[in-house]
C-alpha cells in the first residue's frame, strides 16, 4: 500500500497518520475513561474569572461546534451538499455562515488566550497541555480561514474531494489521489487535524466525549441504593 517514490511523504501524512491517530485516540480515550475517570472534566476556570470568560468561551464553542458539524455533514452527505451548492445563492449563504462561525471561533480563541495570559489566577491553572491545545487550534483555525478565503468554494470541494478521501480511509482502502494535488495550506489543515485527534485524549479535550446528553431524558432526582436491584428514582 505504501511505496517509496514521489508520494512517500503524502503517504505518511495521509495514510499512516490518520490510522495511527485514530488508534491512539480510541485506545487512550477508553483506557483513560476506565482507569482515570476522575480526570474527565471540562476543567472550567469560570470560578476564577467570570467576566472575560463569557466573551471567550461562548463564541469559541458555538463557532467550533458549527464548523465541526459542517465538516461532519459534508462527510456524511456529500451529494446533498453539492446539490444544495448548485444554486449560487445557497452556496453563498452556506459559505458565509461557515465563515462567520470560523470568525466567531477565532475571536473566541483570541479572547481565551488573552484571558489565560493576563489573568493571574487562570494562568495558574493552565498546563503545558493547554498551550499545545491552544497552538493547534490557532494553526487549525487560521489555516481553515485561509483556505476559505483563497481556495473557494470549500464546501463544494470538501464534498467532492475530502469526503471521498475520508471514506477511502473508513473503508480501509486509502486513496490519497484526492489530496495529493491539493494546495499545501489544505494539506496542513488535514495533517494538523490528524495530530489533534492523536493528542486529544491526553488533554482536556476529552470533555467533548462526556458531553452531557443523558440530562435530556433523565428524571430530575437521582437516588442510588446500596443494592443494584433497588436502583430506582
Amino acid at each position: 500500500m505504501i511505496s517509496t517514490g514521489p508520494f512517500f511523504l503524502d503517504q505518511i501524512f495521509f495514510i499512516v497518520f490518520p490510522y495511527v491517530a485514530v488508534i491512539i485516540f480510541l485506545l487512550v480515550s477508553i483506557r483513560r475513561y476506565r482507569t482515570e475517570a476522575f480526570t474527565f472534566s471540562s476543567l472550567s476556570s469560570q470560578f476564577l474569572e467570570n467576566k472575560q470568560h463569557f466573551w471567550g468561551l461562548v463564541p469559541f464553542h458555538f463557532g467550533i461546534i458549527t464548523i465541526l458539524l459542517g465538516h461532519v455533514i459534508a462527510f456524511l452527505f456529500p451529494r446533498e451538499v453539492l446539490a444544495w451548492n448548485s444554486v449560487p445563492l445557497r452556496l453563498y449563504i452556506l459559505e458565509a455562515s461557515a465563515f462567520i462561525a470560523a470568525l466567531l471561533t477565532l475571536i473566541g480563541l483570541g479572547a481565551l488566550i488573552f484571558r489565560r495570559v493576563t489573568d493571574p489566577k487562570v494562568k495558574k491553572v493552565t498546563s503545558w497541555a493547554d498551550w499545545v491545545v491552544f497552538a493547534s487550534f490557532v494553526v487549525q483555525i487560521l489555516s481553515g480561514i485561509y483556505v476559505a478565503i483563497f481556495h473557494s468554494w470549500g464546501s463544494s470541494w470538501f464534498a467532492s474531494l475530502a469526503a471521498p478521501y475520508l471514506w477511502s480511509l473508513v473503508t480501509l482502502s486509502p486513496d490519497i489521489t484526492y489530496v495529493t494535488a491539493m494546495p499545501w495550506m489544505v494539506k496542513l489543515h488535514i495533517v494538523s487535524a490528524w495530530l489533534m485527534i492523536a493528542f486529544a485524549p491526553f488533554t482536556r479535550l476529552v470533555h467533548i466525549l462526556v458531553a452531557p446528553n443523558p440530562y435530556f431524558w433523565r428524571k430530575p432526582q437521582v437516588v442510588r441504593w446500596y443494592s443494584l436491584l433497588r436502583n430506582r428514582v
Partner: protein
Amino acid sequence: MNVRSQISMVFHLDKCIGCHTCSIACKNIWTDRKGTEYMWWNNVETKPGTGFPTKWEDQEKYRGGWELKEGNLRLKSTSKAKTVTNIFHNPSMPSMDDYYEPWTYKYDELFNAPEGPDQPTARPISMVTGEYINVEAGPNWDDDLGGSPVYAESDPNLKGLTEDQRQQLFAIERLVFFYFPRICNHCLNPSCVAACPSGALYKRGEDGIVLIDQKRCRGWRACVAACPYKKTFYNWSTGKSEKCVLCYPRLETGQAPACFHSCVGRIRYLGVLLYDADRIEEVAKLRDEQLIDGHRSLVLNPHDPAVIAAARANGIHDSVIESAQASPVYKFVKEWKLALPPHIEFRTMPMLYYVPPMSPVMANRGDDTVSSVSGEFFHDIEDSRVPLQFMANLFGAGHQGKVVYALKKQKAVRTYRRAKTVGDIPMETAEKMLREADCSIEQAEAVYNLTSLCTFEDRFVIPPMHREEAIEMMRDPAEHKTAVGFGFMEPPKRGL
C-alpha cells in the same frame, strides 16, 4: 406511602455561641486540600449579616432553588434547554470574588529576616497564585458585625421590615445579632441533584445523604448555581465540584459528623426521620405559607404501626426504625414543632432544621440601674430585639406564625423552669404560659432535658448504616470476602 429514611439534623440556635469550632473541625478533615481552601462546608454566619458567599440568600442574584411556574416546579438557574446554551458559560455561577481569595502568610520571612530596626512581618500570599495579595474579604468577614451599615444592612432577610424595625437593629446599645451555622441541608428535593447535566449528584437511598460522584462530575458547575444555600463548591484545582458529605465515613462507623461531635455549645442534634417520598413533589408545590406544615406532614410517625409496616415493606431495617423512634430530630420537628427549616421558600425541602434563637432580654439603662422594659420577666416575644419579621424571613418563608409558636414555647419552658428552680415567678403564671404555648408540663420537662442536659447519646442517635447489606445484595458475602476482603476496592487480580 413510600417510606424512606433520612439522616436529619437540628441546630439549636439559642445555644450557639459562634465559636466556629465546627467550621475548623470540618476544615481540618475535609477542605485543607489544594483547590478547596476557600470552601467552608460548615460555616457560621452572623445574622443580620451577608453570609458566605456574600448575600447567598439573594436569589435574584444567584438564582438558586426552585420556583413555581404555572403550577410546575422549575429550577431557577437552569432547565434542559438552558443546559445547551449555558454549559459553556453559566450566567448564574458565582466566582471566587463572591467567596474570597484564600491566603496564607510567608511565615519563613519571620525567621529568615535579616537583623534590623523593625520587627519582621509575614505578608499574606494568595493560595491560588502564590503572589502577595491585599486581603479584602474572608470567609467570616462580617463576624459579629451585627450592627454594621456595610454588612448587616445588606442582609437579604431585612426585606419587608419597617423603617422603625431596621433602625432598631442598628441603634446604639440596642443592636443585636445571633449566629447561624450552616452545612448542606441534604434536602429531599435537592436542586443541585436536579441541575447536574452529568447526573453525578445523587441522594443515597438508605440514608438520604446527598453526594457528588467524583468520577462522574465533569465540572459543568450547574450544581453550584442551583443550590440556593450555596453549599456545593467548585474545586478550581481538580475541576470537580464538592460538597458536605455529612461525614458519612464517620456515620457508617457510628460516629457523629465532625462538626456535630466538636460542637462546644452542644447545639447539634442528629437522628433519623422517616418520610413519605411519594408526597415530596406535591408538598414542594404548595403555597409559601403552607410549606412548613406540608414539609412537617412529610415526616411520618415512627411509632405508627402502619408506618412501621410500610417501612419494613420498603426494606428499611428494624434497627433504623428503632433509631427513628428515638430520634431527637423527630421530637424537635414534629412533636414539639420547635425546629423550622431554613428558607423553605426555596422549595428544596431541607432536612436540617433550626430552633430559632431567643433575643436577649430587652432593658433600658437608667442612671444607675438596668431595668427590663417589659412587664414580664423575659421580654414579650412580639417585641423581640431581633424583629419577628426578620426571623420569619429566615425560618418562616416570610410568615411569622410558626416562628412565634416556637419562640413562645421556648419562652414558656424557660419561665416554667425558672418558676420551678428559682421560684421568683409564680408557678400559676408559668403554667398559664405553657398552656398558651401549646405545651404540657411533661413536654416542657422533655424540652428542657433535651435542650439543657442532653448527653452525647441523646443528641446523636445514629442508626446502624448496614453497609454490609450492600455486599450481601450484590453477591455472596463469602465469595466477596475471598475475592476482595471488605469494601469495594479493585480485586487484586493478576495482570495479563
